[in-house]
């Protein structure tokens, strides 16, 4: 017997993600899912944003890693309220992982919540985990062809952060080619250059996030 299903593989994940999102929204928590390759500068970005957005409202971070809690310890050392998910091999975060960690987090209503996904441009794009929006971090050192090679990660992100701009010349980054690829896969996503080392460029991104939160 043939049974028509037409059902998304991650239907169960998506349903849980919707529940998580509703729960967070009810507490006026605004959630950002941060994607990017290993070493793109996701943790530095979150640190820079915490310096700015943390002044408006409480801010918490969920750190996803395959192994280790190096980033979580680094964030805590800066006084940022950070929680660790160690996936033990899984290459992305999913809604059940977020649900589990939220149940043991003490977050104030009205917080910012940043979720640093596993360093990977492939499967994190496929999963909603309760976020209001995704942003993707790409460093110039990864090359200018990333929007062409990993269209889904860019297409599903509301904004693109281009990190390590001071290395552009050294690595031969072709910004025109990068922007042209983005114009096809994510025509609406603004691009924010950010130097994670100095914090230069973080303010426009923080302002954009405040606006996104305001209009959510």
């Amino acid at each position: 017997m043939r049974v028509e299903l037409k059902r998304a593989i991650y239907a169960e994940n998506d349903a849980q993600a919707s529940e998580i999102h509703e729960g967070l929204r009810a507490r006026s928590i605004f959630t950002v899912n941060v994607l990017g390759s290993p070493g793109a500068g996701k943790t530095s970005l979150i640190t820079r944003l915490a310096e700015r957005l943390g002044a408006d409202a409480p801010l918490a971070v969920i750190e996803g890693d395959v192994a280790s809690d190096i980033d979580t310890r680094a964030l805590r050392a800066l006084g940022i309220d950070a929680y660790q998910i160690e996936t033990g091999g899984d290459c992305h975060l999913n809604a059940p992982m977020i649900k589990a960690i939220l149940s043991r987090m003490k977050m104030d209503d009205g917080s910012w919540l940043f979720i640093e996904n596993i360093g990977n441009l492939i499967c994190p794009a496929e999963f909603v985990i309760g976020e209001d929006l995704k942003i993707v971090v790409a460093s110039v050192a990864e090359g200018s062809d990333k929007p062409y090679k990993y269209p889904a990660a860019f297409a599903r992100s509301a904004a693109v952060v281009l990190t390590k701009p001071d290395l552009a010349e050294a690595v031969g980054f072709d910004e025109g080619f990068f922007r042209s690829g983005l114009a096809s896969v994510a025509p609406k996503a603004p691009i924010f250059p950010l130097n994670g080392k100095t914090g230069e460029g973080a303010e426009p991104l923080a302002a954009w996030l405040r606006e996104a939160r305001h209009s959510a």
Partner: protein
Amino acid sequence: MHEASAAEALVKMVSAEAQARNAARVSRILLVVGESTGYMRESLEFYFAASAKGGLAEGALLDIRYVKPLVRCPSCGLEFERKRFTFDCPVCGEQGIMTSIGGEFYVDSIEIEESA
């Protein structure tokens, strides 16, 4: 790795469906995969076989239909398959925009064998 959790979710979904219908087993699964998701056939098959072992979906034929991503030209409206590293329209040369076609990842249908 990417395909492992996908295969696991797939097995869980079709097994639950088969169980709810009191089926003896799942004999065939039609899976639709857009190529921009990056799920590879060989890996899906490998992890599917491993996940299905011992359950209602064991031995089911996994029929995977790939969907080519389509780009739409904002100028002439043509929908086309892109070449590597370009999104330009093959007819008028205008830069195209990705559509949602090619992002599919769903079970279209299954075939189940009813219990005797």
